């Protein structure tokens, strides 16, 4: 833990929808979670990242009241799901990773049953069932037994089930796994529009590109410990050691290298044949200044790229830092 849990100050000002506080969980002697704390506010799309076995699913299962923590607690809308599941989970929708749904039901029957579990009146259940099957692209399959569905279809139905109660908080464990690219894109835009409607979305995912596209905030867990929790821009900022400009020239001269090294924002210049790797002191796009300097030295520039930092870079850096 490097002290990157920065959202707590914000949370004091506006109460969080989901509050995970000091969670510790043992499986026998193995410590799966070690004092995990983070908060998620209304309208956030919170990506929960971490390598396999880091403790993501354990956190989610405690959030849903399926596991009992050895220490700490979870509050959803002010209620603890372990102690008061009826209140805490009333406004929660959950889609699990590669779910196994009740195969003896048809999609319509299962949606209706889940609607009953939330106490929805019959008319609402009917309307929601129709609307959700349409939304997830299973309109034609509503009357067929779930046992006949493909993995991707089950995953889509799982998202529909998570939305049956019009939840305030949507918890999803790898929601697009098993879906084809078209469905993945559809669901990505669905999650974005749900967050615009004010829903809070908590997504556990391995797909960093997906998380970077849809999440406003991320939490990172490694070996049961939170190594970062905060806005997505913050992680890119915090875990990027330096920015780098890569230049390809027709010919690299010694004068050129020394003049680039003399620039005040350049930390170091590395030469590899006709390629230059220019490490910057600041996180700033200085390609204009660099190209001017190269032209001054009569260099012929073939390409000039600012190496953009992805969430993957930051993620790997954060994991390294958390170890």
């Amino acid at each position, binding site marked *: 833990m490097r002290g990157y849990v920065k959202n707590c100050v914000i949370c004091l000002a506006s109460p969080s929808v989901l509050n995970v506080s000091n969670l510790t969980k043992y499986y026998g002697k193995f410590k799966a979670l070690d004092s995990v704390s983070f908060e998620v506010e209304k309208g956030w799309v919170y990506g929960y990242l971490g390598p396999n076995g880091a403790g993501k699913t354990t956190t989610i299962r405690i959030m849903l009241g399926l596991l009992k923590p050895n220490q700490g607690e979870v509050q959803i809308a002010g209620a603890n799901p372990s102690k008061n599941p009826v209140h805490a989970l009333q406004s929660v929708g959950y889609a699990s990773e590669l779910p196994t749904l009740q195969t003896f039901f048809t999609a319509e029957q299962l949606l209706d*049953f889940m609607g009953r579990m939330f106490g929805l009146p019959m008319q609402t259940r009917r309307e929601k069932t129709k609307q959700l099957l349409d939304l997830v692209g299973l309109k034609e399959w509503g009357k067929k037994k779930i046992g006949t569905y493909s993995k991707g279809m089950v995953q889509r139905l799982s998202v529909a089930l998570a939305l049956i109660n019009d939840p305030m908080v949507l918890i999803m464990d790898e929601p697009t796994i098993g879906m084809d690219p078209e469905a993945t894109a559809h669901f990505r835009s669905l999650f974005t529009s749900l967050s615009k409607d004010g829903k809070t979305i908590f997504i556990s995912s391995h797909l960093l590109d997906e998380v970077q596209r849809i999440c406003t905030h991320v939490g990172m867990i490694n070996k049961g410990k939170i190594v970062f929790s905060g806005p997505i821009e913050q992680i890119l900022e915090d875990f990027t050691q330096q920015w780098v400009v890569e230049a390809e020239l027709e010919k690299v001269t010694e004068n050129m290298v020394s003049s680039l090294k003399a620039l005040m924002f350049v930390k170091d210049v590395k030469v590899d044949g006709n390629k230059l790797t220019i490490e910057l002191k600041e996180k700033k796009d200085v390609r204009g200044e660099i190209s001017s300097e190269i032209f001054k030295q009569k260099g012929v520039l073939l390409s000039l790229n600012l190496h953009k930092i992805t969430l993957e870079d930051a993620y790997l850096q954060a994991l390294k830092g958390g170890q």
Partner: protein
Amino acid sequence: MGGLRRVGTIIGYEWKRALAKKKILALIILAIAFQTLIMVAFSRFVGTMFLTNDAGSFMWILGVLEGQGLFVPLIAIMVAGGSMSEEYEHGTADILLSKPITRVEYMCGKFLGGFSLLAMIEALTTFVGVVLSLWFFGAQTGLQFAPLMFLAVVYSSLIFFCLSFMFSEVFRGSTLAMLMAFGILIASSVIGPILTALYSLSGQHLYVDLGKGIPTWAATSFPSLVMSELITAPRAVLPVADSEALYQAAIIIAVYAVIFIVIAAYRLLKSDVTKKTA
């Protein structure tokens, strides 16, 4: 009110889940076929040789009770043995218990759903038993007690239902739960006659008391003991009325059922929901 609604929802779910299993449907069909076969055998062969004339008018009792020995406990074991465990095996326990429902409500719904389904199956076998006896043996005596007999059968089936339900939650594996419950059913069916034989040989009453402690004694004796209190029928159909044995059987069933349910509830309330195992 919300709690009752949630329990009711799980009861409906449990019915649908259990009836979707072909094994249970097959057992119901087998139970009815067995009943029919026995009645045919009695009317055509066995009855003409061994039964007295007046026994024919009490054949509805035999028609109802004959399923008790094997098929009703088997159906009880099948329904209850998969009730909790299959949800863990298939990973559907996660889906159900991540909804706004308490674990107590969930377990009540599961238990009442399974048990009410078993009661319906017993109502069907009771009805079939009565109809077959009327068909093969003509007018029957004491048919007004048929509903009471049905209730006695339902009560007596609590033992194996609760036993299998407990194993289902404790082991969280349907095969193991059913095997354990079935093993106890077979073992106590074998041990019972051995203890009776030992009593006959030694004359020691201890063997009789031990025999009453095994689950099959109360489960199989209770309905016939209830009927013996109400109807005087030939010995071939019903045992001699024995109020003391009747109360003992009633208490033993209740004690076993409570112990099994408490163990299942303790396991469910105190432990984590296990992930998909199958």
